[in-house]
């Protein structure tokens, strides 16, 4: 078909169309159209005749025509009026074409047509022959013509268009890829002129296959025969479905009754097809023009021509390039592994496997989950470690608390003795004085009253001292509470005040009122301060009187409180510094060396730190830092 040098496609003679609605309209005087009134000043609309093949609802028509119309009217500078005609060689008997032409001529007598769009080979044939008569002067833009159908065609004046590629080569290649070692390909085609036309073009393309496969044809058979054939195909083959508008029994299978789904259902081997509009009907896939893209290209071309481009100067090309597509469901249907699908083919309808569709989001999600898990794990470990460390610290703290008490007692022996013996001595002397006076008979009641009052006061004073010492020295549980650092330091300094006086050491406290409240054990904190201050006092023992000073400072630092104990004694050597907080460490000849170790342990139990630095020009500075309550 359409071969040779005829001035028109051979099918022209048999092609004619008829639309009942137009007959009715034509027969009615009321329908006689008047010259269309043009809105004053507004440009006339573009009036376009669109001629399509067969039923408008063939899938191939729908996708293509929709895209064409959209492209045509999209942001058009004028109104676009489209008049559609149908040429249906499938169902309408031939021979009525002259009358149909005459009818159209009459129909469009008063309608100036700017463009004729021919969608398909049969409309193109009709337009080629009747354009000058019915729509004189209107250019022709065609589409929906299979690439290869126009070989030897004589291009009429003022006509251009786009062809579409139903890619047999790519489709066969797909079939051979998904059926490794395929020996045969069964080509199915119907009996209508279009079916034959399509087959003809397909066969021409097959000459170009690199690695020939044996081609078998199921052509012109009835639909039932066709189905029987595909049910019994040998392994190692596949089916190439072209079209079956009409079967060998003369039955037309309209848009709703296409044979392909049944072929797919019956076939034991994969079915491929080079027609994109068929891909939704169950075949494996194929290589085809994208019909909507093709329609859009035709629409844009039409616009160019309407806007004044010279159609004769526009080259006719296959537009766009074919694409290969494979239906994932069909792969499952014929048990074909995805790896067999050539890489140029896109696999569609893959179930939305979430992690595949959103792979990087999933990767990120998993990374986050993993990170969180790691974080949780490390936090758990950390907290477990901390709890263990705390338990160890508590246990060690309990042991050391005892040692700390002993150490504090040692540091305070002189103070304790003095503070107790002072009132005791006064009491004894008072009592003995009273006794002597009594014996001498000189004890006046007033004197006795004074003496007794003094005895009482001194007794109270002694018991007060004992109470205070007991609090400091008694065995007690580690009991951290919220503490005012300044008042704790002040109380600790009261314990060592006497010791400082006898050593001739001046205690110089500087209290920062902004020092935060901390969580610590009062007694232990005081023991820390006492230990550090007594150490400092011992360090300055040999210093000149002016330098016998221990500076005690509280202040707020960072997230906590700092207690600084500084002296201007000889300080520590670097070796001593390194061993400072280990036990036993002492630079005194009769020291046990436990003081600083205890200090550190107690401070650490309060989540604090103790550090040493050298004073300038000489001396020691100890800094105790404890986090503020709630820090």
């Amino acid at each position, binding site marked *: 078909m359409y071969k040779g040098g005829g001035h028109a496609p051979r099918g022209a003679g048999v092609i004619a169309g008829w639309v009942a609605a137009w007959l009715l309209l034509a027969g009615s005087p009321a329908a006689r159209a008047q010259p269309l009134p043009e809105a004053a000043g507004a440009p006339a609309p573009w009036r376009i005749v669109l001629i399509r093949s067969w039923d408008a609802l063939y899938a191939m028509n729908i996708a293509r025509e929709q895209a064409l119309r959209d492209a045509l009217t999209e942001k058009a500078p004028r109104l676009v009026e489209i008049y559609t005609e149908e040429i249906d060689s499938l169902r309408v008997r031939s021979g009525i074409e002259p009358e149909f032409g005459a009818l159209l001529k009459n129909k469009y007598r008063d309608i100036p047509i700017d463009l004729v769009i021919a969608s398909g080979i049969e409309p193109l044939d009709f337009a080629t022959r009747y354009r000058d008569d019915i729509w004189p002067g209107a250019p022709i833009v065609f589409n929906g013509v299979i690439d290869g159908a126009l070989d030897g065609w004589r291009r009429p004046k003022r006509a251009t268009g786009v062809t579409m590629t139903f890619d047999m080569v790519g489709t066969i290649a797909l079939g051979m890829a998904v059926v490794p070692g395929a020996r045969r390909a069964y080509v199915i085609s119907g009996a209508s002129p279009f079916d034959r036309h399509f087959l003809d073009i397909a066969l021409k393309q097959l000459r170009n296959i690199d690695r020939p496969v044996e081609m078998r044809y199921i052509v012109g058979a009835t639909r039932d025969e066709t189905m029987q054939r595909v049910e019994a195909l040998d392994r190692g083959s596949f089916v190439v479905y072209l079209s079956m508008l009409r079967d060998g029994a003369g039955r037309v299978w309209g848009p709703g009754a296409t044979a392909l789904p049944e072929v797919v259902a019956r076939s034991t081997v994969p079915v491929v097809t080079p027609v994109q509009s068929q891909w939704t009907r169950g075949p494996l896939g194929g290589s085809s023009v994208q019909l909507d893209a093709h329609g859009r290209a035709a629409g844009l071309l039409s616009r160019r021509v309407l806007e004044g481009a010279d159609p004769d100067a526009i080259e006719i090309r296959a537009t766009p390039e074919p694409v290969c597509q494979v239906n994932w469901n069909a792969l499952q249907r014929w048990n074909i592994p995805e790896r067999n699908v050539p890489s140029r083919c896109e696999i569609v309808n893959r179930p939305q496997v979430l992690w595949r569709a959103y792979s990087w989001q999933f990767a990120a999600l998993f990374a986050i989950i993993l990170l969180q898990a790691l974080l949780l794990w490390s936090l758990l470990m950390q907290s477990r470690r901390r709890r263990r460390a705390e338990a160890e610290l508590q246990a060690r703290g309990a042991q050391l608390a005892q040692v700390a008490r002993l150490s504090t007692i040692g540091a305070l022996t002189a103070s304790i003795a003095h503070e107790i013996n002072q009132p005791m001595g006064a009491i004894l002397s008072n009592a003995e004085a009273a006794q002597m006076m009594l014996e*001498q008979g000189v004890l006046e009641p007033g004197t006795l009253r004074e003496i007794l009052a003094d005895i009482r006061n001194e007794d109270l004073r002694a018991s007060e001292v004992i109470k205070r010492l007991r609090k400091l020295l008694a065995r007690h549980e580690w009991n951290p509470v919220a503490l005012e650092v300044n008042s704790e330091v002040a109380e600790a300094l009261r314990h060592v005040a006497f010791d400082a006086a006898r050593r001739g050491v001046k205690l110089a406290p500087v209290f920062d009122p902004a020092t935060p409240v901390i969580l610590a054990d009062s007694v232990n904190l005081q023991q820390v301060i006492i230990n550090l201050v007594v150490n400092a006092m011992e360090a300055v023992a040999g210093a000149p009187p002016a330098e016998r000073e221990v500076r005690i400072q509280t202040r707020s630092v960072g997230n906590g409180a700092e207690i600084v104990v500084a002296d201007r004694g000889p300080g520590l050597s670097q070796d001593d510094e390194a061993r400072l907080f280990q036990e036993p460490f002492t630079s005194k000849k009769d020291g046990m060396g436990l003081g600083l170790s205890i200090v550190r342990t107690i401070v650490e139990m309060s989540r604090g730190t103790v550090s040493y630095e050298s004073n300038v020009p000489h001396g020691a500075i100890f800094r105790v830092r404890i986090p503020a309550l709630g820090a």
Partner: protein
Amino acid sequence: MMAAPAIPGIVHVVDDDSAFQTAIARALTAAGHRPRVYSSAAEYLAADDSEGPACVLLDLRMPGPSGLDLQGALSRRDNAHPVVFLSGHGDIPSTVRAMQAGAIDFLTKPVPIATLLDAIHRALERDLERQRVLLRRGELKERYATLTPRERQVMAGVIAGRLNKQICYALHAAERTVKTHRARVMEKMKVRSVAELVRIAEELEQAGIELETTPL
């Protein structure tokens, strides 16, 4: 009834604890002594206390100069009273230092009054003795001061065991003159024998008096 002390005296109580001051003063008063209280070493040093017999009852630890510091300062005085330490807590080094520096005793509070009075008694005895020595030294110094330079030279010769002839030769004097000087020395110094004169010379030297030496 407690008897009056064998030696009643002034007891200087140096203690910063006013309650203790009061108590100890009461007890000492009841025991027949005359206590005087001071709350610091400086306060005591500033007070005139040349009277006797007296002693110092000294606390070891006080703000400012300690008891040991005060004892050191007193020992540089030639008329210092004996010291008894009375401390709330005495460590061994302090005790040793105090005793080496001549303290009568080192007591710790609380101290039974008998113990305290015994120590005070010994201190007052020492003070009386000290006063006696001071008196005699003063007397001897006065006697020596009455000698003429020539008599002092002769006395130096005599206590050095020289014969009259040797002294004559050394002093370029006649033997009779020397004999006269010698008799006057014995008279002025109120001694009857050379041995007695030698002993007084030693006492004077102990009291730090520079004696004339013989140019032999």
